[in-house]
């Protein structure tokens, strides 16, 4: 890596022509400095086209009507399900449930799997890195069942001392949305299963930056949202091992989750449909299928290498600012920091005024903020569609803001 003045001269575009082509696929970048991808990623034109195409020319429902578009849509929804199964390396598309997002996926696990299982004083180990979406569902089910929540630092060594025969569930993020830290899932999984507990992984951030293989890692439940992975909002995935999903009660009742119904009762449909009551987010599913196909055409290693250089560049520019304190792990595309004596909200306002999209605050991770000893951070999050110019504009806007505030 080039350092010092050399780094400032680094022309990443010329060295990475692929990144420029990648960037051109995102219409939202035309007049926007977007450094808030960990909140939601921008959408490639392909995904937008697929959604528009469905609404404009092929609107129909899935698994119900028998006209031509309806049959096509039904097939496409299951094709997309298979694409997701392939993407996360699950063994069968029956293990893939469409949800509204990571939050709903984890709530389903808590209510349909954990709630009937947990007894008073059973333990759920939850890391303190977690986003509220992988904390609140566990707090709720603990209250309902009398189970206990056990706080864990996310370090493997500490986990062995926390696990016991009382442990029923261990919940951990694949990648922290604040620090970018990626826990060692392979080792964690091994330990968790030694105690016959089940492992729940929140993949909301991790799915974007790390290839995931739920089968090899022996993950019991995995949740992620389409919108952070260049896909549509309002669509998520719950992966569960087939035998676990089979033993679970249904989550919601409604159309097409049943085989038979009368006023005396009902018989649930097979997997995955028993968890998908009501009309699904079809436009979203078709958009996500287009996103996953589009993702395949890029050389992941090359884009990853480019992103790492961009991260190094951003970190080196930020490090030149006075009174800055970083909270992220090295080389993370998520960069969180504070500036001494300046409130993050003031920075947010002044960057917004300069059309720079970033995120500030507690980032839905209050327990982690308490641990880090701060009330909030300033976060930029990078994707391969960002470029050096984005970083330069951000740094210059940030310097303006700091100048105004001091």
């Amino acid at each position, binding site marked *: 890596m080039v350092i010092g003045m050399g780094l400032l001269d680094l022309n990443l575009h010329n060295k990475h022509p692929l990144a420029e082509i990648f960037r051109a696929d995102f219409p939202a970048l035309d007049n926007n400095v977007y450094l808030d991808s960990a909140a939601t990623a921008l959408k490639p034109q392909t995904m937008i086209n697929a959604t528009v195409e469905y609404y404009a020319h092929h609107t129909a429902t899935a698994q119900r009507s028998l006209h031509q578009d309806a049959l096509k849509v039904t097939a496409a929804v299951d094709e997309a399900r298979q694409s997701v199964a392939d993407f996360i390396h699950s063994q069968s598309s029956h293990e893939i449930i469409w949800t509204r997002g990571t939050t709903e996926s984890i709530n389903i696990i808590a209510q349909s799997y954990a709630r009937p299982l947990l007894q008073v004083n059973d333990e759920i180990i939850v890391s303190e890195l977690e986003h509220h979406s992988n904390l609140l569902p566990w707090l709720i089910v603990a209250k309902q069942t009398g189970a206990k929540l056990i706080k864990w630092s996310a370090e493997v060594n500490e986990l062995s001392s926390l696990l016991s025969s009382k442990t029923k569930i261990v919940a951990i993020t694949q990648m922290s949305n604040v620090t970018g830290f990626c826990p060692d899932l392979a080792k964690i999984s091994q330990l968790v299963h030694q105690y016959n507990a089940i492992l729940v992984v929140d993949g909301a951030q991790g799915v974007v930056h790390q290839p995931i293989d739920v089968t090899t890692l022996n993950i019991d439940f995995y949740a992620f949202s389409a919108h952070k992975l260049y896909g549509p909002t309002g669509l998520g995935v719950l992966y569960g091992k087939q035998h676990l999903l089979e033993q679970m009660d249904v989550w919601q009742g409604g159309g097409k989750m049943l085989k038979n119904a009368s006023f005396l009762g009902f018989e649930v449909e097979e997997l995955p449909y028993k968890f998908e009551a009501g009309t699904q987010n079809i436009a979203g599913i078709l958009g996500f299928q287009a996103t996953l196909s589009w993702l395949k055409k890029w050389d992941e290693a090359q884009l990853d290498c480019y992103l790492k250089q961009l991260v190094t560049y951003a970190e080196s520019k930020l490090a030149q600012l006075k009174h800055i304190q970083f909270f992220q792990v090295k080389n993370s595309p998520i960069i969180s920091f504070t500036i001494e004596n300046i*409130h993050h909200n*003031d920075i947010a*306002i*002044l960057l917004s*005024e300069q059309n720079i999209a970033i995120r500030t*605050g507690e980032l839905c991770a209050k327990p982690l903020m308490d641990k880090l000893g701060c009330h909030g951070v300033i976060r930029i999050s990078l994707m391969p569609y960002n470029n050096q110019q984005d970083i330069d504009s951000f740094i210059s806007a940030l310097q*303006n803001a700091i100048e105004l*505030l001091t």
Partner: protein
Amino acid sequence: MLSQQTLFELFSKQYNWQDRYRQLIALAKQLPDFADEKKIEANQVYGCENRVWLTANKQSDNTFIFQGDSEGRIVKGLLTVLIIIANNKTAEQIKALDFHAILKQLKITDELSQSRLQGLDKLIERIKSQ
């Protein structure tokens, strides 16, 4: 504390957006910081992106004197503007105030995107609740 007239004079000149924020940030210094014992829940205004505290003291002539503090300097500057407008008025007079029209007159509402934040309405609501 600045008079309302001085406030109008300050903001009447044409400024670029940076200058307007500079004004707000400078105005924030008009409000003394709250001691920790005043930063209690009863004084906190919820719904803002950063923590804001507000107290109101009724004087013998039934007018109010407000004091406020905020973690963020820009919000504190906005709070200062609101307090200058509301101070030394009775509850009825405060209720009749059109804060948004005044902020518009001061060119704060239109030019600063901060004023679009929901927090501003929460502050106005709290001041009017006397």
